């Protein structure tokens, strides 16, 4: 479904990725592991078109997208949910979600259905639908960010560190929801530092180090890999 082939890109002075190769098959959850600054977010930015690849190819359903404008990429079905939960703090929860459905703005019935689906996935958002997004707790904000991405009905969802800064109990719920979204047919590419939780729902993973892929394999392989265990799981 998504294929990165020898992709390099630069973001600022120090952050860059080099020769990245990733393969995502439809229906999978794929994890990108790595420390801060290892290149996960830069890879996401390059896939979603916010950053232009300096070399290499990105194919989405066999169509090259590395020259495509970001808003076109969204229309093709790749939606990114950014790391820092960028919401519109003064808009209500429901307005935030409707912004997520922007590309379907003329299909009112579909939007209503999507809104319903998001509320089913995250009932707390329904309860707070008229609250300003900035007034939500961290976990609720993360749910809203994922819900907003879901409103676009993506084929592929890019989730950048959904567990960051959340309490362990909430993290568990979050991964449960991600699994649900995946089971309903959305392919998911997930960047995480919480390796154990991420690998437990994923099919395969890539380990990033200094802007390059250091290791790759199935979730089980990575979970049993000594280096991964030492670096990310602490055992």
């Amino acid at each position, binding site marked *: 479904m998504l294929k990165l082939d020898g992709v390099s890109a630069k973001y600022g002075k120090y952050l860059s990725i080099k020769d990245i190769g990733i393969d995502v098959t439809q229906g999978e959850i794929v994890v990108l592991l790595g420390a801060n600054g290892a290149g996960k977010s830069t890879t996401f930015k390059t896939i979603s078109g916010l950053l232009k690849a300096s070399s290499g190819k990105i194919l989405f359903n066999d169509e090259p997208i590395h020259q495509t404008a970001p808003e076109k990429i*969204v229309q093709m079905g790749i939606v990114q949910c950014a790391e820092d939960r960028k919401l519109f703090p003064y*808009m209500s929860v429901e*307005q935030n979600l409707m912004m997520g459905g922007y590309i379907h703005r003329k299909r009112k019935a579909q939007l209503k259905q999507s809104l319903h689906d998001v509320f089913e996935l995250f009932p707390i958002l329904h309860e707070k639908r008229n609250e300003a997004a900035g007034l939500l707790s961290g976990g609720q904000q993360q749910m809203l960010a994922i819900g907003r991405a879901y409103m676009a009905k993506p084929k592929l969802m890019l989730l950048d560190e959904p567990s960051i800064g959340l309490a362990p109990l909430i993290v568990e719920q979050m991964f449960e929801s991600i699994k649900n979204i995946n089971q309903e047919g959305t392919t998911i590419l997930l960047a995480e530092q919480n390796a154990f939780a991420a690998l437990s729902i994923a099919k395969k993973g890539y380990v990033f180090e200094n802007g390059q892929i250091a290791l790759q394999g199935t979730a089980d392989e990575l979970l049993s890999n000594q280096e991964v265990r030492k670096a990310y799981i602490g055992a």
Partner: protein
Amino acid sequence: MNILTNKKVIISLLIVLGIVFPFIIPNLYYLHIMTLAFIWTIAVYGLNLLAGYTGYLSLAHGGFFAIGAYVIGILTVKLEMGFWLSFLLAPLVTMFIGLIIGLFALRTKEHFFAIYTLCVGYIIYLVIDKWEGLTGGVRGLIGIPLPEAIGPISFQSPTAQYYLAFIIFLLVVAVIYRIVHSLTGRTFVAIRNSEDLALSLGISTKRNKLLAFVLSTFFAGLAGAMYAGFIRFIGPEIAYTTITFDLLTYMIVGGIGTFAGPIVGTFLIVIISQNLQFLQDYRMLIFGPLLTLLIIFSPRGIVGFIQMQLYQRKRKKQESLAYKNREEETNAGG
């Protein structure tokens, strides 16, 4: 809800005040000032749409105001067209020129955009000042006709002109309200928040920025046309950057990016500066520090300050509520 904080009550009261104003204060001078304030507010609304909601600070706004004024001036004085047709054409022509300038200006961002538009504004001034054949140069255009009577309603008296400005003002406020509370308005806000975020939601930022720019020039042109029809004489000084900075001050004092800001800021400053008239230019000694203090302590102006207070209060209430719930839970659990 408290009757004083109920929006509907406040709005109705303000509209009634606007209607009865000429009867309460039958002073021609004050009527003149109020009419001008309506016109300035419309221009500020245009600026706020772009600078406030979309986050692109245009310093060419006074220039577009002047284009609106000069279009109606040239059409009525030089080409002897009727007032209303010219009045209709003025904002449309301004918008068209805005579209072309916007295509280039929006290739820049942030302070570069501000500097670029500042230059554009100055060029507009120079064109008006130097192109004597078209604009009358420094002599300006004299004798812009009054609006023609519509049926039994004539616009001879200052009171009639006041009501005309008031009605257009109300229409503009209603239209702006619709825009900022629509998906388009929220798209503008999304662009202001973060263009990258807007792009990753599938929003074409280029198209929407241009839309905001063009809409803002429309309201500038409309205000300019109203000004020319009201004062009936225009000179190149209305294209000068002072007008832009006046509009900017009104917007910032009222509250950049807020809905009520343009009204609050414009009327407040116009009224205060009328009352400080006796100080002549020294009144800037009072204005300057006040403006500086306002920007330091409330960058989003008076209306933004009030909104922030309400937001914080709600937030605190919610936090204490959440805390209480948690405590109850632990108590029940333990």
